[in-house]
């Protein structure tokens, strides 16, 4: 099991069954307030990542020693850090790095998972058995342990943190994709295609893979939040992006020293990690629900 599998299975079962999550089957679904808020937050985060100066016109590196350790105020919404840099500007500026790290790690994890899952699900029982044993071995390194092992081998740094997080999420993706592949393969429309005499390769390419890969989008959205949290954890532990960078985990780590005097230094970067993760989960779930009802 992985965090992702729990999130994915929770959405799967809630779809259409629990009255709380699905407002009836009246064709098109209403957009809930929560979904609207999630879309809005996602758009703001993307704006911050692409054009940070639109939301925070200041310079994230501008030092102002006189204003050091300022509490949140009208001039500095989130306060200032030990060199008087504006935390709000730095948090907005950090969106790019944090989102990019999360996205890259997710793409790596999802890509590896898709390759492994597809190999296991299509190349026969012997291959399936081998890949499954391999995945089980990887699952025996819970959570961040696989990432830590990877960093032990390749050394700390932003690059290896990204690959490490991607690698440790890959087994979860692989297992979901394999299960989905097996489900699709035994479904009625694949049987129908077989009866009509289509070749194995054609069935795989035209019928099985498209139906397996569509849910990847949902998985990816759900996974980004987790990837950002894990990458930030590595940065926080000093194994990923290093403190001068405005990456959220690194900012939190830098604020750790001043936690008794300047709580805002670590509170706000962390808050944005939480907001991003919640936003990703909410969006992933709502896309999943819509795909299921479409």
């Amino acid at each position, binding site marked *: 099991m992985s965090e992702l599998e729990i999130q994915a299975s929770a959405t799967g079962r809630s779809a259409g069954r*629990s009255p709380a999550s699905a407002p009836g089957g009246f064709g098109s679904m209403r957009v809930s307030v929560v979904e609207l808020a999630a879309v809005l937050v996602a758009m703001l985060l993307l704006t911050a990542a692409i054009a940070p100066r639109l939301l925070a016109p200041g310079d994230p590196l501008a030092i102002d020693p006189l204003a050091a350790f300022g509490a949140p105020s009208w001039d500095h919404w989130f306060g200032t850090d030990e060199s008087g840099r504006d935390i709000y500007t730095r948090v907005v500026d950090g969106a790019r790095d944090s989102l990019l790290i999360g996205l890259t790690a997710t793409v790596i994890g999802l890509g590896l998972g898709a390759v492994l899952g597809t190999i296991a699900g299509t190349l026969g029982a012997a291959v399936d058995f081998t890949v499954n044993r391999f995945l089980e071995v990887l699952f025996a390194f*819970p959570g961040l342990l696989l990432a830590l092992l990877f960093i032990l081998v390749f050394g700390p740094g932003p690059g290896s943190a990204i690959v490490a997080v991607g690698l440790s999420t890959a087994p979860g993706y692989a297992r979901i994709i394999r299960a989905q592949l097996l489900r699709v393969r035994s479904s009625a429309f694949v049987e129908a295609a077989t009866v009509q005499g289509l070749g194995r390769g054609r069935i795989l390419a035209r019928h099985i893979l498209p139906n397996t890969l569509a849910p990847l989008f949902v998985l990816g959205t759900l996974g980004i939040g987790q990837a950002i949290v894990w990458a930030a954890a590595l940065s926080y532990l000093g194994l990923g992006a290093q403190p001068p960078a405005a990456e959220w985990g690194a900012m939190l780590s830098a604020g750790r020293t001043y936690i008794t005097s300047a709580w805002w230094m670590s509170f706000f970067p962390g808050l944005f990690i939480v907001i991003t993760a919640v936003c990703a989960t909410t969006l992933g779930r709502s896309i999943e629900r819509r795909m299921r009802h479409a």
Partner: protein
Amino acid sequence: MLWAVATVTFFAVRLIPGDPAEAILGGPGSQTSPEALAAVRAEYGLDQPLLVQYLQQLGRLATGDLGRSYALNMDVGPLVLSQIGGTLVLAVLSLAVAWLIALVLATWSTGRGRLAARIGTGLEIVAAALPHFWLATTLIVVFSVWWGVLPPISTADARGLVLPVVTLAIPLAGFLGQVMRESLNTALESPFVLSARARGESDRGVLWRHALRHAALPAISLSGWAFGSLISGAVVVETIFARPGLGRTLLNAVTVRDVPVVVGVVMVVALAYILMTIVTDLASGLADPRPTEIGNGGLS
């Protein structure tokens, strides 16, 4: 299984660039004489062919010998043993608290209409998204710096355990709660609930005596995973609260590239994880109210 884990770690560690003997003598860049290097290689068995080293390592592991730390000048076995207690206490307590929170939240918000269910789901999603490092620092600021009721670093007495346990328990409760709510809703819609109601069982009775047992099942099988994620979370939490334990030992070892310690800790965690998975499989078999021949297809 353990053999596979040992093999993976052994060959992964061989990928590390640089000479392990140099690492033992103070890392790259340190002035080491060829004689000292040769002596260290002989002492740690690094002058043997790779296959011999591999077999030697497997042999040592089979007898419970985890090798010797590069940095701490002590054997890994006793080191791990001295640290594992604190982590186990932390993990077990957190698991219990997480179960309690998830159970309370799921039972409170089920069957009270859409608003309660939404609040429950929302709380679970937020809880599951909380990173340990942020939750820990926020709790420290509120409870230690502002109110001064709990110590910011872990002390030997019970008060020092509160914040670390809560930090680990809340995100986990989010995950357990999501799963529990799903299965509770499914259980409440099944025929046996209807028949219990027809026999005159109250709402409360249906929930506690009938549905909850079904609902707990997936969450019990998740506890193996939960235990693993707690140990991974312990790396962060033990570091923040300066609490001695396996997680902090692991992080320190990764930072200074103390390979035998990392391998040793990872092996022990993998062993604990596998054992825990077996235990939860057995437990969910015992808790399963369905006839045995259906089985529950336990998680591996």
